[in-house]
């Protein structure tokens, strides 16, 4: 039985977790700073559209970058660790966003 996971599965899994946390931190940054929100508003006409573009671009960029690491073999990580990182990304992103709006809202 083959138990290895493809390099893109690993790299985009890690990228997903990173982008989820980045997404949540960008929420905190733009809601806490009018300058950041104003800049995001100016860039595409709506801060949410800019937010989406930044996070999607980060997901693609980090996914491809991690896949190129290790001389093109991608990052090496076990399935258990990858699952923990992906689930951790969801939980962290969820808690930061809802926690922030519970406190700030």
């Amino acid at each position, binding site marked *: *039985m*083959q*138990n*290895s*996971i*493809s390099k*893109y*599965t690993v790299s*985009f*899994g890690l990228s*997903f977790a990173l*982008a*989820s946390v980045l*997404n*949540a931190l960008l*929420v905190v940054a733009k809601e806490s700073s009018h300058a950041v929100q104003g800049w995001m508003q100016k860039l595409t006409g*709506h801060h*949410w*559209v800019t*937010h*989406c573009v930044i*996070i*999607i671009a980060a*997901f693609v960029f980090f996914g491809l970058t991690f896949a190129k690491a290790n001389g093109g073999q991608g990052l090496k990580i*076990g*399935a258990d660790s*990858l*699952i923990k990182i*992906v*689930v951790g990304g*969801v939980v962290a*992103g*969820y808690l930061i*966003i*809802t926690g922030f*709006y*519970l406190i700030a*809202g």
Partner: protein
Amino acid sequence: MQADCEVAKKFALAVWILGGVARNNFYHKNNMNEIILMVHVLFGVGCIIAAVWVFVDVLNASESNLSRIKWMSRASAIFMWLAIFFGGYWYVVFYKVDKAIILKGPWPFAHNFFMESKEHLVIMLLLLATYLPVAASNNLAGNKDARRLVLWVAAMVPLLGLMIEGHGAIIAMGVKVALEAGQH
């Protein structure tokens, strides 16, 4: 030359205003606000159903259902992209009216907490649904680790999706209670 430029600018402005008026009339006449919102919800539900399908199929993964798992995971991602496209358009174009109504009503938290968190949690869901076909591209029939990963991802999509659908319901209810409060 400068006069020509001024005429062109005025013409462009007139076209823009008339186009906007025509679009607003079309939207109003055809209830486009509600239709776009329903299409957004429909695709969101489609994403959830496809992810549940993937979860069940992966529990019984074999050579015979690998192709279906891959197609359903792609369907989940495509539905999610369509849901965010229609939802995003509705949010940018129409939501400001609902927001003003909600904030004047008895449930301002429907915007301050539920809409604010929904519009950002949905980005995370978009990435998770996009990641599902990547994770499902491994040989799930012969790879236990890949199967476990896909099960986790496929389980989190409906979980997060249903939570976000719930947020949407509370936002709609926020508009309703505000309108009802305004009538009394």
